[in-house]
């Protein structure tokens, strides 16, 4: 059940699909064996099994968080073909909304989902309708600059309203628990689970609802969709709203273990782009896999090359994967 928006409607033709599956298996085998070798090297460098296990568990969990943050990004790219540079800013906005909700109403942080997610949805629809729909046919750089401008504006509105002092949201009962001998903060596990749930929800919405079918139709062929009577502009707005809601959910779930500043979302931007490309742009389960690859690469690189920024390893992996699989690990070659 692939929820790749790139090739969603052509789900028939078993002859065409079977080789793709084996292709996927090949990718999976290569990925796993590379990971195994890297893990072995990391184990030698770490010199302690506890440290290695901790690195692996942390890698998986942070990977989940990266994919959580990247989910809206990949959805919006898949349908609108816009690289949304405002994704991080939207996540930061959601963090502040969480803070405000918790601060004023004194509720549990996760109940803020009920407020933040719909609010972000409305904002997303407004942004798409007012700013991006007019430039949907413009070249990629136009849309990119609009989202960059949007990111600047959102971050600085947050600075203006909340001031520069960092905020925080405390999660009641946020203790460390032990998994396979590794220690993990509960809030990070919740966020990881949240990522899985978000993948499931988005997949369901796209596969099983009428609006999801329209979205996939628009993603695959906007002209064709228009011909069969779909209002593409409103589908664009719905999609951006969904993307903003995903960013909103990410913001709420990440808020308890993050220092909330206007730039708190932007620090995820880099990794989120890598995650999205690795998973195949527009491929929602792919984002989950991409997140895990990035999370593990970061952790293991930290053990193997302690003098370099772990992100360097992430970008090198990214470039290599990009050249070998130009449409992402699970994307199809054209």
């Amino acid at each position, binding site marked *: 059940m692939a929820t790749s928006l790139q090739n969603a409607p052509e789900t028939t033709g078993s002859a065409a699909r079977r080789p793709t599956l084996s292709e996927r298996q090949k990718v999976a085998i290569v990925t796993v064996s590379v990971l195994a070798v890297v893990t072995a090297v990391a184990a030698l460098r770490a010199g302690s099994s506890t440290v290695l296990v901790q690195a692996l568990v942390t890698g998986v969990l942070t990977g989940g968080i990266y994919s959580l943050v990247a989910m809206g990004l990949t959805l919006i*790219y898949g349908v609108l*073909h816009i*690289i949304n540079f405002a994704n991080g800013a939207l996540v930061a906005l959601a963090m502040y909304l969480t803070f405000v909700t918790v601060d004023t109403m004194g509720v549990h942080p996760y109940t803020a989902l009920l407020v933040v997610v719909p609010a972000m949805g409305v904002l997303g629809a407004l942004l798409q309708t007012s*700013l991006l729909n*007019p*430039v949907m046919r*413009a*070249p*990629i*750089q*136009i849309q*990119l*600059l*609009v989202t*960059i*401008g*949007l990111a*600047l*504006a959102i971050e*600085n*509105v947050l*600075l*203006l309203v909340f001031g*520069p002092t960092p905020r925080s949201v405390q999660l009641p009962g946020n203790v460390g628990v032990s998994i396979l001998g590794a220690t993990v903060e509960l809030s990070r596990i919740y966020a990881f689970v949240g990522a899985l749930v978000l993948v499931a929800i988005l997949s369901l919405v796209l596969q099983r609802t009428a609006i999801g079918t329209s979205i996939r139709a628009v993603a695959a062929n906007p002209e064709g969709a228009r011909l069969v009577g779909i209002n593409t502009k409103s589908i664009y707005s719905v999609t951006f709203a969904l993307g903003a809601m995903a960013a909103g959910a990410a913001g709420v779930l990440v808020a308890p273990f993050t220092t909330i500043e206007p730039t708190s979302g932007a620090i995820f931007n*880099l990794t989120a*782009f*890598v995650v999205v*490309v690795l998973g195949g*742009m527009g491929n929602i389960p792919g984002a989950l896999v991409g997140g895990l690859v990035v999370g593990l690469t970061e952790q293991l690189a930290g053990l193997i090359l302690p*003098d*370099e*920024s772990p*992100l*360097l390893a992430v*970008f*090198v992996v*990214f*470039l290599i994967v*990009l*050249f*070998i699989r*130009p*449409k*992402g690990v699970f994307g199809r070659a*054209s």
Partner: protein
Amino acid sequence: MTTTATPRTSTSAGGGLTGRLTTDTGSQRSRGDYVVLAVFVAVAAAVPFVLSASDMAIANRVLIFAIMGVGWNIMAGFGGMFSFGHAAYFGIGAYATAYGVVVLGLSPWLGMLLGIAISVAAGVGISYLALRYKLTGAYYTMSTFAFAEALRLFVIGNDALNRTVGFTIPVQQGSSLVDFQFPAGSPWYYWIGLGLLGMCLLASILFVRSRPGRFTIAARDDDVAAAALGIDVLRHKLFAVAVSAAITAVAGTYYVQYYMFVDPEIAFGAAASNDAIITAVVGGTGTIWGPIVGAIIMAPLSDVVTGFLRTPPPGFEWLAGHGGLDIILYAVILVAVVILLPKGVYGTLVSRRRKS
């Protein structure tokens, strides 16, 4: 764009074949470009006589933006390769110069050549991989972005390049053209920068007129058709990358010599890539003069906005003293310009003129 099935009368008026060819707009426009370039450089050279020192700082930034925009425009505007990582070439130019001057004791001019060489090699290398492996659209764009980021992280982890600190060019007393150093506020910085910009513009004009340039534009419009007509698309795109990387590296050298300082974030951060794109897009991509117009508008914009908010006009005093408001205003203006004039300011003017 006209969609009628009859050609415009103006083109058929002459009737004869030769008549049409002598009025070929392309070559005339290009010859006009040389004239415009000469006039532009001559007029712009007078700027230091009329601007104050702090305004000259902005004028110098206009030059840096313009060179970067011209460089980006070659690759993205004429070559059709949307780069979001021009910080890579800017940064290589800047670091090569700074390293040359501070560590190797070279003249900045040699550092500039070094920067151009490395920048071209890196650009051609990474673009060869990207084009060879047929990265397209957003994937191509993200690969350029990742390349610049990887360079930034590499420098941060490299002791020989001073990690996060970067380089500071030693201050000398007196002026020296060889050392590309003058007293603070000297108009020579501006004149040298203008000279460099002039050369980059000349390179841009020559490129567009040249065979490789025209083949590149053909490949941008349709690479399959270009290949079918015997054009080696890969080679020509790489040539465009080389020209683009070289020009952008020049901006890096100029930056270092003017600001006398560079660090990994300045050199390879996303802001540098953004500046190149914003300049060209606001002015008009795929036009010779678009980046100049874009630089003249966008480079001073943040100063203007900040200045406006520092001492607002009567009635707007309540706007003062809010950190962040200046950037919000800048962002709003950027978004508005881009949405309302997607072809850019100069690009829109040109297409209006063509239509009428």
